[in-house]
């Protein structure tokens, strides 16, 4: 499965990629914001995205993805610091499939991936 990880923090991308690779997900592409994410969607089967990013934030990125029929059904997991119920509801409304609040364990993020794929 080809996975796209979108986060402006190289550190957080590294943490997520390490967790994914340890779980056997070797085909991982990285982007630093929503615009880079939109330009990296070729062949992507799952998206993990941060919310709070410069240039294009995660929610705008999700909205853009869901507008495009080609990406309408790709599972999206939001990985972010904002975990209040209103934010979760807003993210789900915009087409996010599930939500992980930082900091997370490897086990949690893998469970979330397995639940949406």
């Amino acid at each position, binding site marked *: 499965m080809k996975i796209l990880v979108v986060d*402006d*923090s*190289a*550190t*957080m991308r*590294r*943490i997520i990629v*390490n967790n994914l690779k340890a779980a056997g997900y070797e085909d991982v592409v990285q982007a630093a914001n929503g615009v880079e994410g939109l330009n990296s969607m070729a062949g992507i089967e799952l998206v993990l995205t941060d919310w*709070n990013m*410069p240039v294009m934030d995660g929610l705008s990125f999700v909205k853009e993805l869901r507008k495009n029929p080609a990406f309408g059904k790709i599972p999206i997991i939001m990985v*972010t*610091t*904002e*975990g*209040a*119920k*209103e*934010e979760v509801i807003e993210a789900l409304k915009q087409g996010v499939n599930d939500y992980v*609040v*930082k*900091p*997370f*364990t490897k086990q949690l993020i893998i469970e979330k991936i397995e639940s949406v794929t």
Partner: protein
Amino acid sequence: MGCVDGKICSALATALSSTLETLAFAEIDPLDVEAYKKDPNDNDITLRDESIWAQIPFVLPFKGYLTILLVPDLANNLTEGIYGFLEKDMLSEEVVFDSIAEISNILAGQFCTNYLGDDIFFELGLPDKGRTIDESEIPVHDGVEYKLDYSVEGFQLTVILVTDAFA
């Protein structure tokens, strides 16, 4: 001002503990810096001199900032803890700054969740970061200041909260 508000102190300590333990496998303890300064011969903690710092703004539901300051050795250790094994030549200042900025981001988010509860919407801005030997060079802001010191792996880590929300 130290941690005179129990709710703030508890929310912050819990946030810092979960953030550092989950990200970098590091444990924290409260630190009485003045006590260490009074007896420098019995000091097994490295107090801050030069600092790596990261600062993140609270945007909603209150305005303010959270700043963390730590000695470069601790910043390097935490970065190595986050990344796992890291070649020394990969431990660039950019990588360390990014790690500390991400810690401040997650810490601020965890603090808001602990302090406000799950039902209240909050929003954070983007982090700023730097290195200094003069704490006065770090951007300051109006508001009530809470300054809390912790010991992490034998090094001092300071968290400064500035906001009008706790006045």
